């Protein structure tokens, strides 16, 4: 065998500094996290809330989180898999669903803190830039947008969720530069385009295009929509109904499933010393028996 110089010597491992666990998993950007959770020292224990938006392949998670030394605590959360409760069955990870999830979380938090009558937010979603005005009695609920590891591009769905929370009445510092419909040439947000995206207009126009040009692809791609009877023309009114339903009852519903009495194991249970020794003895017996059989054959 040719002589290969070992790339990772023992010295390399001895000097290797392991990154933080969540950095190893590639889930947390610590540079951003330090800047988001650092609270002014002369504000002592006042919590600093982050509006966390994360996307998975089939779900959207929106949470209001505050950081403590023992761990982060979630004040309220909303998931896009809750949207069927409000009448949205298909397309749970698009821009419009992100808007609905942000809106749901915002109204839920305000209801939890009994501020929902004071701060109605933007009831009719127009797509224009809307910021909450503080009333005389209480200042609005302030949170900071936490995107995670997403690349900030114009028209990203996280900003759809942000728009939903803003229209719900939360105070989140933002600029309209990254909303869908912002044109770099004019340096202005086109409110009509944004309005189209909030109500799923981009999905509707793609449905129309496919229906005309490639009906088979339309059948396969939008099969869930067809099953639920959603068509390109009634998408906008569907989302309007969902927004109204969310504003009517944003409270979280507890699931009826009882918590499991015995927790599911995800990894192998560690063996005790006696069990490991017993296993070793078994293995040696088996080896001896097999070895004995071989040597008998050879003889």
């Amino acid at each position, binding site marked *: 065998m040719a002589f290969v110089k070992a790339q990772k010597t023992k010295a390399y491992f001895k000097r*290797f500094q392991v990154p933080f666990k969540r950095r190893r998993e590639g889930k947390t950007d610590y*540079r951003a996290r*330090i800047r988001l*959770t650092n*609270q*002014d*020292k002369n504000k*002592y224990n006042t919590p600093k809330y982050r509006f966390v938006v994360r996307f998975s392949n089939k779900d959207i998670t929106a949470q209001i989180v505050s950081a*403590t*030394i023992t761990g982060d605590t979630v004040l309220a959360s909303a998931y896009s898999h809750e949207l069927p409760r409000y009448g949205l069955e298909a397309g749970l990870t698009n821009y419009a669903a992100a808007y609905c999830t942000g809106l749901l979380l915002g109204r839920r938090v305000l209801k939890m803190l009994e501020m929902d009558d004071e701060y109605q937010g933007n009831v009719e979603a127009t797509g224009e830039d809307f910021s909450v005005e503080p009333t005389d009695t209480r200042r609005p609920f302030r949170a900071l947008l936490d995107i995670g590891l997403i690349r900030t591009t114009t028209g990203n769905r996280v900003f759809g969720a942000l728009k939903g929370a803003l229209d719900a009445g939360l105070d989140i510092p933002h600029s309209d530069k990254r909303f869908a419909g912002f044109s770099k040439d004019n340096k202005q947000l086109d409110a009509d385009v944004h309005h189209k995206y909030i109500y799923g207009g981009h999905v509707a126009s793609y449905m129309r295009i496919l229906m005309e040009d490639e009906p088979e692809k339309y059948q396969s791609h939008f099969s869930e929509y067809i099953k639920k009877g959603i068509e390109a023309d009634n998408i906008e009114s569907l989302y309007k109904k969902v927004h109204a339903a969310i504003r009517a009852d944003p409270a979280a519903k507890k699931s009826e499933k009882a918590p499991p009495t015995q927790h599911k194991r995800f990894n192998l249970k560690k063996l005790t010393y006696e069990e490991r020794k017993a296993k070793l003895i078994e293995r040696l017996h088996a080896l001896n028996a097999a070895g004995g059989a071989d040597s008998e054959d050879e003889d």
Partner: protein
Amino acid sequence: MPAGHGVRSRTRDSFSRPFRKKGYIPLSTYLRTYKIGDYVDVKVNGAVHKGMPHKFYHGRTGRVWNVTKRAIGVEVNKQVGNRIIRKRIHVRVEHVQPSRCTEEFKLRKVKNDQLKAEAKAKGEVISTKRQPEGPKPGFMVEGATLETVTPIPYDVVNDLKGGY
């Protein structure tokens, strides 16, 4: 050319980060809160360049006298000539740790209050003063046998057996 006496002179080792602990510092340093009157240790974190105290204060303990947005005002004793001055410095929170110097005292205070309340309920009089460790009590030595050791006369022949 001589070495120079700049502000960070001779801090090569004391301000350097420990082995395999370089890079981002854990978030708990930013999440701690400090109140005026707390005792804190000043320990410089070389990874953060802003708000560093002078190398003299590295390893000193002082009381908090001011809390600002990102920094803490600490009052530290410094001997200047023939007197000790209470110096007030401002230090960023990354270079400060809560001190455990009063921890034992606080625990003892709580325990003493509890003992005094119990004694008052029972009507006893107790002293909660700490006593220094006294001399060890006397004890009997068990299982001792007497063995008398006497010197033996010098035997030339036996001692030469190696090199003779």
